């Protein structure tokens, strides 16, 4: 009998996903809570940056973990849940994009200020920002818009890379593609990002 622990740098060994999954199946709801705490923020980050919608990110995060709970009996408990969770999150995001596609085109002609789509717009901002903070805020909006300008298959790779800091090997596992393909998509996304950013920030020359 072995207790599978995963050691993180500078921290006490933590219980593996597989053990937590087994405990959840046995009725330990606290074990599932640990899983939620472990993955909710990185998943939320991915979803929020992918969709550019803070409220949608909350809804989809909830859906992903519901799916996890329902699917636990069928998952292989010997492997980390990370890849599976991001796969489900990505698929849910794609579903949401398809659902909004018909609506999105009509919104393209609305105000060019897309703050209502930005996750930053959901953050309360009740006081005047110093100039430096305003510039940083503007940068976040620019980066988010550049991500939103990417086609979904590139967007997945870019968000996992920049927002979630996954290696290309991990990205390949999440997106079920060879590592080389993940790198290729990332490199192909770069000119698109450059163009999108250049339209807003002239200091970045377009290719």
């Amino acid at each position, binding site marked *: *009998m*072995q*207790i*599978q622990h995963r050691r993180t740098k500078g921290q006490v060994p933590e*219980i593996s996903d*597989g*053990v937590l999954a*087994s*405990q*959840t*199946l*046995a*009725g330990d*709801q606290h074990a*599932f*809570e640990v899983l*939620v*705490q472990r993955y*909710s*923020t990185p998943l*939320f*980050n991915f979803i*929020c*940056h992918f969709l550019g919608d*803070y409220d949608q*990110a*909350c809804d989809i*995060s*909830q859906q992903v*973990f*519901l799916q996890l*709970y*329902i699917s*636990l*009996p069928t998952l292989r*408990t*010997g492997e980390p849940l990370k890849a599976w969770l991001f796969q489900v999150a990505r698929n849910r995001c794609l579903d949401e994009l398809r659902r909004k596609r018909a609506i999105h085109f009509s919104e393209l002609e609305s105000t060019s200020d897309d703050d209502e789509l930005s*996750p*930053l717009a959901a953050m309360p901002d009740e006081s005047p920002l110093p100039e430096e903070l305003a510039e*940083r805020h503007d*940068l*976040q909006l620019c*980066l988010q818009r550049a991500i939103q300008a990417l086609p979904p298959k590139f967007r997945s790779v*870019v968000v996992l890379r*920049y*927002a979630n*800091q*996954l*290696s*290309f090997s991990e990205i390949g596992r999440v997106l079920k593609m060879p590592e080389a393909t993940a*790198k290729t998509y*990332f*490199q192909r996304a*770069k000119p698109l*990002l*450059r163009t999108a*950013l250049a339209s807003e920030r002239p200091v*970045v020359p377009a290719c």
Partner: protein
Amino acid sequence: MLYFQRAYLADEALPHDEIDDLFEKLQPVQPPPSLIQRILNSVNQLPRHPLAQQPQSPLSLDSGAMDDIDGLDSLVVRKEGLPPS
């Protein structure tokens, strides 16, 4: 502002450019504090897993221990009239 470490790029054989520099400044978006509880509340409304509904002895933490639990038999539909395989 938080800036991500560039360590995750160090072992990758891709050239680092100004786009990487810009996106290193991409801030993480914090979920609302209520998200975890919201998730747990919705999960609590789901039926418990069949195994969790069975009274059973404390589990070992071995991932293979599930196979030893009699409660799993409840998931198997027995057809008593069939000959053994």
